[in-house]
């Protein structure tokens, strides 16, 4: 049998306090799509960063066509025909597509001037050959995300990649763009390229991969082919136990109104009205979901409720207390907890350790502080308890939050916000970017709050999540509540119809083309 195109043997990589890769072996044949599946923090990206020369392994070796290679930099990886498209694109936004693609390998004329004519020709040629249509003169900044990703792929191809590593390529794409990406990947493989597809989404693995390698806790725990398994089987391998995709939900016993929003109007950064007179109430013991396509005023409304943005009109009450003009501190004091949609920007201070993150918002309250002096005895005690209660996996409470995986960071945010025992939980996109195991955990915690009689306002772009958790669903479109449903009353299609402006005064022609975010794991 011929040697595989690339083979990783017993790769081991330590980070302080974490064994990210523990003797991981993986091989890839020409013309093959291998999905590397695992939860966040399983070690998938670490392994690929080793192959791409971004990290040097503590042990093990990489072979290409049977020969050992030492890849010390991305430059060497590129010379060996390895290309990588990162989760966060490495493009220069103000430059054109052509300029971005040839960056680092510019064709030059005699005196060293860049030959833009040649460059544009090269880009046209390569985009024709692989069927990746793109405008060579477009400015990258103006392109939609899916198109930017295509530029990244073209960049790798331009540099002569025969092996393409795609790190969570669908995380930022719309369902339509995902379908297009899959077509592109299939056509590349048709041209003889090999693709490593890093993901934690089971559906994607089933539809694109020839072979699946599953990682958990830094080790390879299994290898299979999509035709020999199903999503439940993959989930079991990935998480190491049975995953219940539909969380158990008792009927709600909704009580009195906790949060009352009355005709609230909020302006966005450009001083335009983003929330145009919204009224609703969230009751004790219920989860009210605010569903909508991103950018329809949800963010502004959440920021207004949590005291981060000024209210232009209307009133807001939390347990009867007027919080219309309350600052964040006063809203917290009134009984509000907030799981922000961007945990890196708003949820955590990544450079702070777990203790310092746990007390954020309560850092002036007893028992954590007395007369302005922090008392680390109760702080340590409470942190340890909450880390255990909310299953935050960490070597100690002294590590920085940045050292945790995405799922554990979100659990840390939950540990702080729910540990405060709030009356109202505002959860914005609480499972964004998380894997199935962590999503299940977060969903169960939110349900547990409801069952304790807390009021929950859930804002989500994922219909799957809305349908799973909500007792009542409000559809927000262009800053207005356009429809209310009771849980189970509406299908995904109906929700999508209203989310995209159907049923309102602006009945759009695209009513049929409802964007339904694909369920990540509905088995």
């Amino acid at each position: 049998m011929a040697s595989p195109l690339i083979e990783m043997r017993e790769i081991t990589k330590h980070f302080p306090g974490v064994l990210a890769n523990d003797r991981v072996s993986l091989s890839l044949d020409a013309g093959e799509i291998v999905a590397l599946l695992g939860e966040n923090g399983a070690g998938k990206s670490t392994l690929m960063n080793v192959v791409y020369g971004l990290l040097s392994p503590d042990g093990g070796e990489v072979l290409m066509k049977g020969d050992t290679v030492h890849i010390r930099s991305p430059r060497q990886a590129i010379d060996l025909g390895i290309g990588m498209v990162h989760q966060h694109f490495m493009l220069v936004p103000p430059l054109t597509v052509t300029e971005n693609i040839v960056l680092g390998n510019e064709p030059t004329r005699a005196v060293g001037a860049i030959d833009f004519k040649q460059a544009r020709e090269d880009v046209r040629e390569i985009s024709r050959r692989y069927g990746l249509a793109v405008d060579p003169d477009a400015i990258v900044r103006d392109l939609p995300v899916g198109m930017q990703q295509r530029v990244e792929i073209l960049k790798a191809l331009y540099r002569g990649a025969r092996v393409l590593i795609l790190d969570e390529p669908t995380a930022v794409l719309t369902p339509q763009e995902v379908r297009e990406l899959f077509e592109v990947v299939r056509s590349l493989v048709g041209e003889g390229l090999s693709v490593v597809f890093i993901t934690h989404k089971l559906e994607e693995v089933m539809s694109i991969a020839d072979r699946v390698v599953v990682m958990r806790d830094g080790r390879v725990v299994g290898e299979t082919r999509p035709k020999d398994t199903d999503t439940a089987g993959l989930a079991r391998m990935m998480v190491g136990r049975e995953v219940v995709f539909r969380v158990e939900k008792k009927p709600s016993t909704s009580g009195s109104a906790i949060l009352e929003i009355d005709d609230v109007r909020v302006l966005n950064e450009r001083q335009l009205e983003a929330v145009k007179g919204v009224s609703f109430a969230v009751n004790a013991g219920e989860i009210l979901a605010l569903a909508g396509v991103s950018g329809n005023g949800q963010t502004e409304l959440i920021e207004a409720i949590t005291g981060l943005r000024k209210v232009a009109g209307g009133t807001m009450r939390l347990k009867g207390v007027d919080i219309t003009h309350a600052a964040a501190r006063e809203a917290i004091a009134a009984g509000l907890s907030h799981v922000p949609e961007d945990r890196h920007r708003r949820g955590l201070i990544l450079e702070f350790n777990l203790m310092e993150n746990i007390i954020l918002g309560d850092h002036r309250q007893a028992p954590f502080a007395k007369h302005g002096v922090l008392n680390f005895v109760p702080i340590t005690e409470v942190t340890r308890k909450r880390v255990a209660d909310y299953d935050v996996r960490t070597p100690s409470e002294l590590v920085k939050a940045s050292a945790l995986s995405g799922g554990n960071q979100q659990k840390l945010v939950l540990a702080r916000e729910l540990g405060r025992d709030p009356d109202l939980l505002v959860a914005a996109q609480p499972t964004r970017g998380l894997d199935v195991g962590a999503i299940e955990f977060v969903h169960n915690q939110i349900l547990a709050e409801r069952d304790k009689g807390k009021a929950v306002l859930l804002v989500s772009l994922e219909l799957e999540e809305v349908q799973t958790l909500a007792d009542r669903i409000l559809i927000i479109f262009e800053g207005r509540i356009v429809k209310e449903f009771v849980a189970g009353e509406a299908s995904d299609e109906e929700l999508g119809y209203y989310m995209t402006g159907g049923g309102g005064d602006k009945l759009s022609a695209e009513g049929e083309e409802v964007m339904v975010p694909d369920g990540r794991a509905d088995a």
Partner: protein
Amino acid sequence: MAELTRETLSKRVTGVLRELAVPLVSVAIAAAIGSVIMLVSGFDPLTAFAAMFKGAFGGGRQIGETMLRSTPLMFTGLAVAYGFRAGLFNIGAEGQLFMGGLSAAWLGIVLAGMPRPLNIVLMILAGAAIGAAWAFIPALLKAKVGAHEVITTMMFTYIGRYIVSWLVTGPLKAPGQIPQTNRLPVESTLPRLHEMLPFLTPSRVHFGFVIAVLLAMFVWWVLKYTSLGYESRAVGYNPFASETGGISVPATTIKALCISGALAGLAGVTEVMGVHLRLFDQFSAGFGFTGIAVALLAKNNPIGVIAAAILFGGLSAGGGTMQLEADVPQKVILIIQALIIFLVAAEQIARWVIGWTERKGVENAG
């Protein structure tokens, strides 16, 4: 706090060593490059460094001189470091220092005849207050309209310096030719340390050094163990998460820049009360600016500021001896100082050297 088992203790020690590695290696590389420059210019670096060391630490008088020169740098280093921890670059410590010096020179005369301890306490509090006040307007502009503190504190430095220039040549000028204020009465001065520690005789080092060291420890404690310090660091790292957690970012910004200004003001107070005993145009040798370098070298750690200030004070004190005994121009000291700043700023160079020596060590051991 975690129990101090042997393991966590050793982890902490390794952690501290790692923190120290970059500054120490940077200083070593700077000395090495300085040596090459001396060799190329025809001087013997060993003789020069020996003379410099002798001039900085060779005896009681020399040690006293190093302490004297490090004192204002400790205050300004702390000032800049506190600002940095809150995400603020107080480039105007020099202006706050001038205002602190001005308040001491004026108040010291006004308080003539009062008991010395009372005068010292009042003059220190007043100097800190006016330093804070001098930072308050830039702080307010930053918090309310987002005006960048690098511009505004710098502009306030010019205002402060010119106010002092005008006062020492006009309204506050002492009789005589020289533009300076009246000499402070003894009850308005800081005691010299050799009065308590005779071995420092005859250096001019004063009680301000002790205040600076104690204050550095206090600032360390404030940053780590108080809600105020916690909020400052939180805003410095991530203002958005701080805001979400209920911290007022504008209020914290104002507090932090005013604290920074108060610390810088004390540098001026102690220079006037301990060294010059009066105010004149040139009473600060750019201490506010060197404080930026001290903070950088200390990586904004208040305890590190003590060490970094003593290093810079020692370089300055030893420079004279180096010129006298080894015939090496004192300007070489400035080159070495610049190299240290350069290397600390370009941290990656030191990290690369550390990584290289560690690999060498492993290979040799294997």
